């Protein structure tokens, strides 16, 4: 279906993109590697000196870095199953025959959280989860729950982040899975429903194979997005209190721009990049073989 073309034609099509991405993607990356091999503090720029792998040695043995990493994967481990469970429920609900108008309205509403500015979600978190003026505690009060210090208490701030992550991304999972459900040939689904009344069996043996590609994509994208997570947490908690919500991208930003240690932050960033690439390779190797 495709053809060989002269190098010049090929380059005229694809060259500009490669150059642009090399300029803004690769160039800075090489510079980050250079920085990571130096003592490089923004407040002590006169003392920049080559220190080899010291920054890396520091990062690899630094409990703060690994705590942030662990926290990031803990967030993924808690939020993603919730998103998949709720998302699947919503998708099945929308897939059922029923009140068309209400279903259309819901499908429209599902688009909203995803499109919302991440920073605004965090600001909303500050407003709604405030211990005194927040509407969340007011609503909880109606069912007899005492006010909870969401943002200010290290034990709870993490769950405020989980809440917003679930709020913002469950709709995405729901829409992806709904699209998967519509790829099941109707005659197969109907035949299965005549065989069994158990929705679980239909889901497990008929629909699940059609949902797998979507689930894999959700897993990959959510992993990447959790490693990137910055805006919402920064505007809601700034990584605090203490370091209760200091996820990996927040940590690197703090070290680089609030502690001004660009050398150390660059080493952390390079290690994060390596982890990201290894993970995405792994995912693609493991899953895409099965799916395709």
């Amino acid at each position, binding site marked *: 279906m*495709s053809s*060989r*073309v002269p190098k010049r034609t*090929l380059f005229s*099509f*694809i060259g500009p*993109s*490669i150059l*642009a*991405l090399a300029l*803004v*993607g690769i*160039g*800075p*990356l090489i*510079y980050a590697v250079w*920085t990571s091999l130096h003592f490089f503090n923004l407040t002590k720029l006169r003392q920049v000196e080559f220190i080899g792998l010291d920054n890396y040695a520091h990062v690899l043995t630094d409990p703060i870095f690994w705590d942030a990493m662990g926290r990031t994967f803990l967030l993924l481990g808690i939020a993603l199953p919730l998103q998949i469970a709720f998302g699947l429920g919503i998708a099945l*609900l929308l897939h*059922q*025959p029923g*009140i068309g108008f*209400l279903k259309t*309205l*819901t499908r429209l509403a599902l*688009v*909203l*959280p995803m*499109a*919302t*500015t991440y*920073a*605004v979600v965090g*600001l*909303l978190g500050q*407003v*709604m989860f405030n211990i005194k*003026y927040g509407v969340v505690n007011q609503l909880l009060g109606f069912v007899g729950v005492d006010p909870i210090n969401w943002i200010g208490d290290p034990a709870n701030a993490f769950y405020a982040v989980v809440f917003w992550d679930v*709020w913002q991304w469950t*709709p*995405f999972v729901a*829409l992806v899975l709904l*699209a998967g459900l519509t790829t099941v040939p109707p005659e197969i689904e109907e035949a299965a429903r005549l065989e069994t009344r158990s929705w679980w069996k239909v889901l497990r043996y008929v629909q699940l194979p059609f949902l797998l*590609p*979507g689930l894999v994509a959700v897993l*990959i994208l959510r992993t*990447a997005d959790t*490693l*990137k997570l*910055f*805006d919402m947490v*920064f505007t809601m908690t700034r990584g605090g209190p203490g370091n209760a919500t200091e996820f990996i991208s927040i940590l690197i*930003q703090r070290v*680089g*721009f609030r502690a001004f240690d660009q050398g150390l*932050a*660059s080493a952390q*960033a*390079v290690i*994060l990049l390596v982890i*990201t690439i290894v993970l995405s390779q792994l995912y693609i190797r493991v899953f895409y073989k099965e799916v395709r």
Partner: protein
Amino acid sequence: MSARAPGQGRGLAVQAALLCLILIFCVFPFYWMVTTSLKTQLIALQEPPAWIFSPTLGNYTEVLFEDGVGRTLINSLIIAVSTTLLAVGLGAPAAYALARFEFRGKKDLWFWFITNRMVSPIVLALPFFLIVRHLGLLDTHLVLILIYLTFNLPIVIWICTDQFRAIPYDLDEAAILEGASHWRIFRSICLPLAMPGVAVSAIFSFIFSWNELMYAIVLTRNTAKTAPAMAVSFMEGYNLPYGKIMATSTLIVVPVLIFALIASKQLVRGLTMGAVK
């Protein structure tokens, strides 16, 4: 399916109740954002929060005319539109090449393009800040326009490659026999047919750029400050101006939401296209 079985009425009622619950869950934060933006500081700090109050537009006039949020909205618009145009201009031909031409290293190139989307922006923010500061380009629109390409270009290439692959190759072949050049075929035949995909990728690229915060706070100070960065700068100090923060948030979010609702069919298609295939 349409025959009414006994108990179906109850099933429908349960479905309706659940759907309403989902609707409220999705929409409530926006309701709270807008109502808070219409409260004076005194009402916003009421405890427990007030549901009924006399609304005022004071926060909006204040943020727009005294704090300069209007200017930051224009900055956001300039940056998001420029980077989107650039991403589509660069990405569409590249996507065409990936879909149509055979060449060595195509798979690796594809993987590299897509990996860019996976990389945490903080990885690039550190060196980009140092380079840009060295070049004296901090706080310019150009810098954000360029760095937003790191996530916009992969999205455009991803979605458009899919779209070009869906166009029958016979059309190209016929045109080649007529002696048309590849650029001519791209411009006159394939690009018009691929417009739906191009439009979806442009919408994504616009929304992602409009919403971005981290590069904006690292790379801008004043002149090129974007609206999300402006909203965050209200957060300093102890007595937070909740009404003003929510008014700014509303100004940022509402245009995107309207945009997303109008294009919701295409957006969902774009989101799921990559995911389901």
